[in-house]
C-alpha cells in the first residue's frame, strides 16, 4: 500500500434513481427504505463549488447506506 488514504472517502457507485431522483438500486442492491435525504451546497465562491444531494438508505440486505449525487458533475458516490 502506498501513501496515506483518507478514511471514509467517497467511492464511485452505480445508482439507479427514479424520475424524482430518489435512488432505487445501488450496486445491484434494491433500496427498500429511504431514511433521510439532505442537501449540501457550499464553496460556491471557489474554483471547486460543491452541490451534493445525500441519501441515507436501507438496502434489501438490511445495510444502512449513504450515497450522494454530485449535482454539478451528475455522478453518484457511496459515502458509507
Amino acid at each position, binding site marked *: 500500500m502506498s501513501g496515506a488514504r483518507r478514511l471514509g472517502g467517497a467511492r464511485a457507485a452505480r445508482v439507479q434513481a427514479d424520475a424524482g431522483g430518489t435512488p432505487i438500486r445501488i450496486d445491484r442492491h434494491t433500496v427498500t427504505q429511504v*431514511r433521510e435525504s439532505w442537501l*449540501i451546497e457550499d464553496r460556491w*465562491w471557489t474554483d471547486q463549488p460543491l452541490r451534493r444531494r445525500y441519501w441515507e438508505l436501507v438496502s434489501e440486505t438490511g445495510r444502512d447506506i449513504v450515497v450522494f449525487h454530485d449535482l454539478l458533475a451528475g455522478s453518484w458516490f457511496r459515502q458509507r
Partner: protein
Amino acid sequence: MELHCHSAYSFLDGASMPEELVGAALELGHQTLALTDHDGVWGSMEFAHAAQGLGLRAIHGAELSLDDGRHVTLLVASARGWSNLCRLLTLAHAHTRDSGSPSLRPAASSLENLGDHAEGLVCLTGCAERGVHDEPGVRRLLEAFGRERLRIELQRPFLQDDRARNRALSGLARRLDLRCVATGNIHAHASSRVHLQDAFVALRHNVTLEASEPLRRANGSHVLATPGAMAARFREHPQAVSETAVLAEQLDFNLVGDLGYRYPGVEDQTAQRRLVELCQARLGDRYGGAGLAAAGDRLEEELRVIEALGLAGFFLLHHDMLELAREVAVEVRGPDTARALLPPGRGRGSSVSSIVCYLTGLSHIDPIASGLSLGRFLNPELTSLPDIDLDFPRDIREVLIRRVHDRYGRDRAALVATFPSFRSRAAIRELGKVLGLPPAEIERVARGADGFARRVERDVEAALGPGRAGSGRWAWLKSLSEEAYGLPRHVSQHPGGMIVATRPLIDCCPVVPAAMEGRQLVQWDKDSCADAGFLKIDLLGLGMLSAVERCVESIAQVRGTRIDLSRIPFDDGPTYAAIQDADTTGVFQIESRAQMQSLRRTRPANLEELAVQVAIIRPGPIQGGAVNPYIERRQRQREDPDYEPPCLHPSLVPVLRETLGTIIFQDQVLEVAQAFAGFAPGEADGLRRAMSRKRATVAIERYRERFRAGAERHVGAPPELIARVWEMVAGFAGFGFPKAHSAAFGLLAYQSTWLRVHYAPEFLCALLNEQPMGFYPPDSLVHEAQRRGIELRAVDINASEAECTVEPVAPPAGGASAAPACGEAGHPVGGFGQAVRIGLGYVSGVREEEIETLVAARREGGPFRSLAELAGRANACRGSLEQLAWSGACDALAGDRRQALWQLGVAAPGRRVPGGTQLALALDVGETPTLAKLGRWANLLADYATTGVSIGDHAMAILRPHLAGVATSSELAVLPHGGTVSVAGLVVARQRPETASGVVFMLLEDEHGTVNLIVPPAVYERHRHIVRAEPLVFARGRLERPAGGGGTINVLVATLRGLDPEHLAGSAATVTRLPSGDPREAGGPEQAEPVAAPDRVQAVGGLRAVAPPVQSFGSGRRR
C-alpha cells in the same frame, strides 16, 4: 401562504427587501405572507404597504429570541396582539445597551414575559435549529398561549436530521393534542440572493466564508418556494400543510389602519383658544404702527386655517418643546453668559413662513418683512401634518433630547430610526473581507470606488487593472455587492426626529435603547412613522449654531463685549464686501467651492439676495436651468439698473420678480402652478409632493396634463409657452429650498460672516472647537486664517487647554500698536490683538480624561518644568505622552520632538496597573544625547500624524523649490485666460455632483491660496485613483478665467498625477527608509534643510498615510 419569513430587516440574516418578498410571493402563487424578522418589526410598515399596494394579505410577527438562546415565532392575530408584540420586543431589547456593555447585546425575552403578553398572539414553536422542541418547554408555551394559539412548527431545511426531528415534533404534537404547521424559514425571495445570505452570515460573525461553514445554512432551501413545492417538501405531514392555510386565515390584523397613536394636545378642546391668546399677546410686541394691521390680518388668516385643520394642539406641542429647550438652554449655557442672550434654537424649513411660528418663538424670521407666503407650509387642503423643524446648538440638543424623554415619559417618547444601507464602498470592504480577498487590494478598490454607483466591476478594474474584475473571487465581489446594494446594514438614529405620544408608544411600535446613553428609538424609520400617522418633531443639531454661540461667548471673555446677534447691523459694509469677494471660508452655507464661484458673480448686497444665494446651488434650481440665467440677469441688472429681466408670461411676473424670472425657491413651483395654471393651493402642493417623491413619473404626468389644461383655461397660453413653463417647473423636481428656509439660513450665513469679519480669531477658534462641521477641514481653516494674518500657535503642554483658545498677542517691542493685517481680498482682519492656540484635544490618541487630568494638574501645581515632571504628574499613559511629544507639545520643555521622545523614554511614565495607574517618580532624566533635528517635511508629517493640523510650513512651500514651471494659486490671477498651466497642491475637496454629468471638481490648496480644478469625465476615468485618493496632486490643463466670471479661476484638467518624487525636478532615484510619521520610526538620520531628494521620497510617501481627511464625494470627510 408562508408563515415564517425574514427580510433584510433581520440585519445580516435576510437578503431581500419586504417589497421583493411581496412581489416574489405573488408571482409564486401565495396569497398570504408573514414577515417574522428577528426580534423586530423594523420592516413591517414597509411590508404592509407593499403588500396592500400589490394585493397580498400581510401577516405581521417576529421571531423572538428567548433568554436561553432558543427562538419562537410569534404571529399577530389582532390589534391587541400587535400591541403585545410591540411590548414584548421592547422588553426583549431593554438591556441590549446596558451600561458597561462594550457592544450591542442580543435581544432576549423570558418565558414569563412571553406569558404576560400572549393575548392576541399565535405562537409557533420556532425554527428547526433553535426552536423550542422539548416537551417541558412546549408545555410552558401551552400554558401561556393555550391550545388554540400554539402550533408545533415543522421545517424542512434539507439537513441530515430533518425527518427524525419532524417525526419527533409530530409525536409531541399528538401527545399534547396540538396542531402542526409547516414553514419555510425564508431568508431570500429568490435563489439569486442565496449566496448573499451566506456572505451576510459570515459578515455577521466577522469571519470568512470558509470559516463560516458551521454557521451558514447548508443549502439554498431557505428561498421562497411555490405552495406546491412546499406541499411536496412536507408530503409526510399533509395535515401540517393544510393547518398552515387554516391558521393564516385566522390571523386578521391590518397594520395599515389606526394604531391608536395620538400626539399630545391633539384632543385638547382648549388648544385653539390658548394658541390665539398666545399669539395675540405677542403680536403687539413684535409689530407696531402701520405693520400691526397687516400682521393682524395675516395672523387671523393663519389661525383660521389652523382651526379648520385642527392643528392648534400641534403648534402648542412644538411651543411646549421650545419652552423646554429654553429651560435646558439656561442650564447648559449658565445664567450669566453672553450666549444667554441668544434664543435656545431656531426654526428652519417651510415653517419659518408662518406668523404663528414667529409669534410663538418657533421661528426667528418675520414672515411679513421677508415676504414669505404660507402655502408651502400650511394650506386649507393639507392632508398630512406639516413639518416644523427646529435647529439647536449641539450641546443644548444633547440635553434636550434626554429631557423630552423625561417630560413625556420613556414609554411615550423616542427617536426615529434610520437604516444605513449597503453602498458600493461598504459592500466592497465588508464582502471583500468575507470572500478572503487581500486586504490591501480591497482597500485600494474601496477608496477608488464611486460611492453611490452600482458598478463594482469598474471600481475593481480601475484599481487593479483590466481582467481582474471578471475572475475568481473578484467576480463574486461584483455580484454580491450588486445584490447587496440598498439593503439595510444596521440600525442607526435619525438626526433629530422624535415621536411623542399620549398613550404608550410601545403599544404602537417597539422602542429600543439607542447607542447613545439615555436615548431610545422606535423600530421604524421616518417613512414608516409617517405611514403610521406619527407626528415627527425634528430637533436638529446645527454645528454652526454651536460655533456662533461659542464665538459670542469667547468674544465676551476675551474682549468683554457682549453681542446680541439679533441686533447686529444687517447692512454692514465690510461683511457684504467679504461676501461679494467670496472671502467666506468657514461661514455658514456660502463657503463651498461652488458657492464661492457663484458669489463673485451674484454679489449679494442684502439679506433677500443672500437668501437667494443660499438656495441657488441646489439640484432643483440647477436641473431647472435657473442658475445661469439668474446669475447673468443679476449681473446685467447691476450694470444697468433699468434692465427688466424677461419673464415667460405676465402672470408669472409677480411670482418670479424677486428671482429675475427664474424658479429658485420650492414655493415658486406652487405659485407658478397657481398663477399660470390656476391650480388650487392643495393641488399645487400635491404637484410639489409628487415632484419630490422618487419614481413618481406617472403622478407627474397626470399633473402635466392638468397643468396644460389649466394654463389654457386660466391664462389662455399657447401650447409652446405652456410647454416651456412646464419644463421650468418639472426641471425643479430635484431638491430645493423653500424661501422661508433660505431666509432662515441666509440670516445665519450673514451672522456668521459678520462674526468672521469682525472677530476673526474668536470665530476661527469656535470653528476649530466644533469640528467636524462645514466644508473645510481644520487644516484648511487654519491655513486660510494664517493667510489672513491671524496668528496660530502650536499645541503646547504648558499653554494649551483641552480646547483651542484665543490668547492675547503681546504688543510689539517699543509699544507701537500692530498694523492692521489684511485678508486675501484686502479686508481688514478683526483680530489684531489675538492669536489662536491649538488645544490638547487635537492630539489624536490621547484620551479625553487624560487631557483633563493633565490640564487640572497644571492648574493645581503650576507649569510642568521638565518631561520627567510631566511624566510624574500628568497621570497619562506612555503612548499618550509619546503622542504629545511627537505633536510638538513638549518642545518648550525638551527643545524638539526627538529630544522630548528620548526624555520621555527615560522618564518611564506611570504604568497602568489593575485599579489605576502606578505613578512614576519624577527622577532627573540626565543628559540627552545629541539627536538630529527633524526636517521640515518630517515636522509636517508629525503634525498631520498627531493633530491633523499643520501650522508651520505648508506642504507646497516645502516642495516649491523642486517644482519648476508650476504656477502658484496667486499667479493664476495674472496668467492669460485660455493658456496651458501646471498647478499642484494639497487636495481640500473632491466633488462630483449628480447634476454635473460626471464632471469632478477638486479644490487644491497651496501656500498662497486655493485652485479650482475641473476634471472632465474622461480624465477622471483615466486617473480615478489619483482623483479619489492622492493627497497631493499635480495637474496640467487650460486656465479658465472668463471676463464675466467675476474673478473666478478654474483649471480645466487634461492630465493629472499624484505629486510623487519622480515628478519633482532634480529628484534622485535614491530610496531611503520612510518615516511614516510614527514616533517609533523617528530615530533615523534626517536630512537637514533644504529638502533633498531622499527626504522628499520619504515625505510624499508618508503624507498618504497621515494627510488630513477632506470633503470627499458627498461621503463626508475621509482620507
